[in-house]
């Protein structure tokens, strides 16, 4: 069975690296990036789920969410946003994200949430 692919977008390389190990260990295929460039490719290269930080280097992650949710080819991809701000939940949901997780993550909760969508 083909592995489910998760794209993680964050500006901290160690957050990307640590999440990649954690998720690959339980059988997901993982791509990491600090921006949304990888989402302009062909449909079969698109991820099954996106983990996206609210605050990227000086850039607003929720703008990316809004854009992805408004485009035909990416609208269907579930987006879980995260932030160090515990009360950013309402904000990210308003931007169109499917779910929110506060940083730092609990492994069990992260995996459970992802499993809800893919």
């Amino acid at each position, binding site marked *: 069975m083909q592995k489910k692919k998760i794209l993680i977008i964050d500006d901290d390389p160690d*957050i990307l*690296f640590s999440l990649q190990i*954690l998720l690959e*260990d339980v059988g997901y295929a993982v791509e990491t990036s600090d921006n949304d460039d990888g989402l302009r490719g062909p449909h079969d290269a698109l991820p099954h789920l996106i983990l996206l930080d609210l605050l990227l280097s000086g850039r607003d992650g929720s703008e990316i969410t809004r854009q992805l949710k408004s485009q035909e080819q990416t609208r269907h991809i579930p987006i879980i946003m995260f932030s160090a*701000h515990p*009360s950013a939940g309402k904000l990210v949901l308003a931007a169109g994200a499917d779910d929110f997780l506060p940083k*730092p993550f*609990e492994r069990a909760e992260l995996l459970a949430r992802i499993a809800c969508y893919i």
Partner: protein
Amino acid sequence: MPIPAKKATASPDPEEILRESEQRFRLMSDTAPVMIWMSGTTTLCTYFNKVWLDFTGRTMEQELGNGWAEGVHPDDFERCLTIYTTSFDQRKPFSMEYRIRRYDGVYRWILDNGVPRFTPNGAFAGYIGSGIDITELKEANQRKDEFISMASHELKTPVTSIKTFTQALSYRFQKQGDEECLRILSRMDAQLDKLTKLISDLLDIAKIQTGKLTLREEAFALDELVVEIVDMLQGTTRHQLLLEQRAPVLVFGDQDRIGQVLINLLTNAIMYSPQADKVAICLEKEQGNVVVSVQDFGIGIAEDQIEKIFEQFYQAADPLEKTYPGLGIGLYISSEIIKQHHGRIWVQSKKGAGSTFMFCLPVYEESSRDLD
């Protein structure tokens, strides 16, 4: 020829007294370094002092009536007018912040306080108010808020990756059955949780100091919040968290922050009663207030320590017992939260027999009307 006798003790001329009083008021009003205004029994303004007129660069005639409102920032206009007219209708004092255009065209933030005034026989006579320029203060608070946001993000970022690495390693060692490494990693994870909580607590303290501790204000069901938090915490402890009494009331305030207080009191109750097996929680409605109590059957607090317990950085440290971990900020933050909600927090305790922490909050008006 008889000289007409001068009246020995001339009764003071009422008009003279009035003139003098008026003069005294004008002098005080025009020299005090605040902006002063008055309105009559309709909401129309009848007076502005020299400081106000100098500030706006307008004349008395331009500002009178509703003229002053022309200088209010368009984004603040609605809110400003609503607060003014609602308070006016209820003859209640008000305090509001809004931007007003200065003589040079720059909008400045004003803190405006108005109080109703009454004639000696109790008739409503209008409002009198004063304002000061708080722009600098507001800008400083704004900068502090932005710093706090960034600091939160910056501090939690390295903690996030370390914690994720730790949990990823735990999974790998678990598959290999390495108990020793699992134990080490579990301690690391617990310490990281503590670090995360400390960061949040320190930032809460910074927020307290800029008065930004409570964010949302809304009416909510307190007993439902208590049930939610008890359910959430029950899964983390073998102590029985018993909700012994409920009171279906609404309170007004920040639900997240009151929740934070409940979590703080409950986790303390659990932590300071390692030998006990339960914590009792009660809600009781009492004359317009609701009292929440959290009782533990643990080590208790010595009488001479009770006053200090809500201070910053206080920590239980009985030399005969283990020092209980923590920065000692939890109760301080909780007491600030309750204070900001116009409530009170206190404790009854006996060393060796446990403690009952209690806080009260005003019941939200509408709810008590429904219950009657």
